[in-house]
């Protein structure tokens, strides 16, 4: 099993580092997806493929169109044009809830917890195929109570892993910013998705917890799930992703293994910045200022000419 999975990763080795490169076993495949807001082309993806069974990171500067792409893929927004498929079946124009049912579940960058439900109720909601969610069987507890118990057990396990067990009976609306992120992610896992799409899952999560959650994400992959996530934390990207896709101004501009992408000068310029690996205090602030000034002068000159 594990061997088979690492195969999926190994297969990536042969993939070219071209944007939109074809993958040996894509779970998601899309082409010519565009979305414009007024005059702004927020997403303009020529071709994208996500490899099954691996962790893919989607990175890019702010406003690159990552969240919008997530919205499009999961049916929360409608593209101007474009077609994409999940497991070989087309998903264009499929409503969001059906997308989720097919096994493609996303989280939101700006968290959407259900404030007046308790944490554990939030979790239970995530479970799929609940008999008790059908109107006609809902009124009879015996029809769904055993399933509910099973779901609760699973939810409790997840909560413990996400360090939310102490908050089990609290309203989700009273969670702190980071705790909401955690709850959202844990809830998405309750759906038991084939592909889980996380939009900045670790923003605002404290480092120690983040580290332990990374282990969890990896184990998800090892269970056979595919993970696609957006993140600005390069430590995390470097640590867990098997493949990285870089977006800028709506387009996919680079792809590759974490190492190769992070060495790409264009990515460094546009996104990572020159100092991403260095200790800021080691940079002489005066130097930085000089640098910035020089930039300004250069810009001013450019403007003049």
């Amino acid at each position: 099993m594990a061997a088979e999975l690492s195969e999926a990763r190994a297969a990536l080795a042969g993939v070219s580092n071209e944007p939109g490169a074809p993958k040996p076993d894509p779970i998601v495949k899309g082409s010519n997806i565009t979305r414009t807001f007024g005059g702004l082309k927020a997403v303009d993806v020529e071709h994208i493929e996500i490899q099954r069974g691996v962790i893919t990171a989607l990175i890019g500067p702010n406003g690159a169109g990552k969240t919008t792409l997530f919205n499009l893929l999961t049916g929360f927004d409608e593209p101007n044009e474009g077609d994409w498929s999940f497991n070989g079946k087309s998903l264009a124009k499929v409503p969001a809830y059906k997308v989720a049912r097919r096994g493609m579940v996303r989280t939101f960058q700006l968290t959407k917890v259900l404030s007046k439900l308790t944490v554990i109720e939030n979790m239970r909601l995530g479970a799929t195929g609940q008999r008790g969610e059908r109107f006609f069987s809902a009124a009879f507890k015996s029809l769904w109570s055993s399933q509910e118990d099973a779901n609760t057990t699973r939810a409790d396990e997840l909560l413990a892993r996400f360090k939310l067990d102490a908050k089990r009976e609290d309203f989700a609306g009273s969670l702190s910013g980071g705790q909401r992120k955690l709850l959202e992610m844990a809830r998405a896992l309750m759906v038991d998705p084939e592909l889980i799409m996380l939009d900045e899952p670790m923003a605002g999560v404290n480092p120690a917890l983040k580290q332990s959650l990374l282990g969890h994400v990896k184990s998800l992959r090892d269970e056979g799930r595919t993970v696609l996530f957006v993140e600005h934390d390069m430590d995390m990207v470097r640590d867990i992703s098997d493949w990285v896709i870089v977006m800028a101004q709506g387009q996919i501009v680079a792809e590759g293994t974490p190492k190769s992408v992070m060495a790409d000068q264009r990515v460094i310029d546009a996104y990572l910045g020159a100092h991403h690996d260095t200790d800021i205090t080691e940079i002489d602030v005066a130097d930085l200022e000089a640098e910035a000034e020089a930039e300004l002068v250069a810009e001013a000159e450019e403007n003049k000419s």
Partner: protein
Amino acid sequence: MTESPTTTSEHDKHVANAEGAVLRADNLIAGYLPGVNILNGADLYCQPGELVGIIGPNGAGKSTLLKALFGLVKIHEGSVSLKGGDITNQRADQLVTKGIGFVPQTENVFPSLTIEENLEMGCYQEPKKFQERFEFVTDLFPRLGERRKQRAGQLSGGERQMVAMGRALMMDPSVLLLDEPSAGLSPVLQDEVFVQTRNINKAGVSVIMVEQNARRCLQICDRGYVLDHGTTAYSGTGKSLSNDPRVIELYLGTLGQNTDD
């Protein structure tokens, strides 16, 4: 002593060193609901021109502490003083007049206002300064200048964060409270935010920042606090904290330590 601080000694340390602080909170007990205290006797001070970082696990009460300082959460016990004057439970807009600026962690932009109007709100009390400050902010985040007429509600997460940070900078405050200003920003902008925060601080503004990007935070701050369960668990210089094994265990973790393997 500094090697093994305990909670009580944290308090002693606080009392001993807080003299002359520009902003100082003593033994704060505060919460959202009657009977449930989120802060259980938190201490904090910030000397003039200091950059203070606050880190801690999720739900420790960091945001609550900032909100309490800024009059947005009711303080049941304890006191907050600004330059020696008591400001406990004062209204936020009065505190703005007194020179405190605040960037909340969430819901930190006005969605139906344009970027420009959002920034204008930053210097609502001194509209004359708008042009000058606006140029400063758009220099820092050129994107905000390009999109000045776009409504903030349509912006991407990172873009919003820029607007939020920009709004605080428009205020030109003497004490600045920042709640996770770098969250959601791309690495290059995160660095930019840290550097600019340092710059602002160098220019004489006292800054208190809450951060989850703890390493960066501890790198640039003069002094740091680790908050846990609503109390100040540890405090010290940024360096000493980032090397303290208990802090690493409780909070920092080891991710990113060994980047180049």
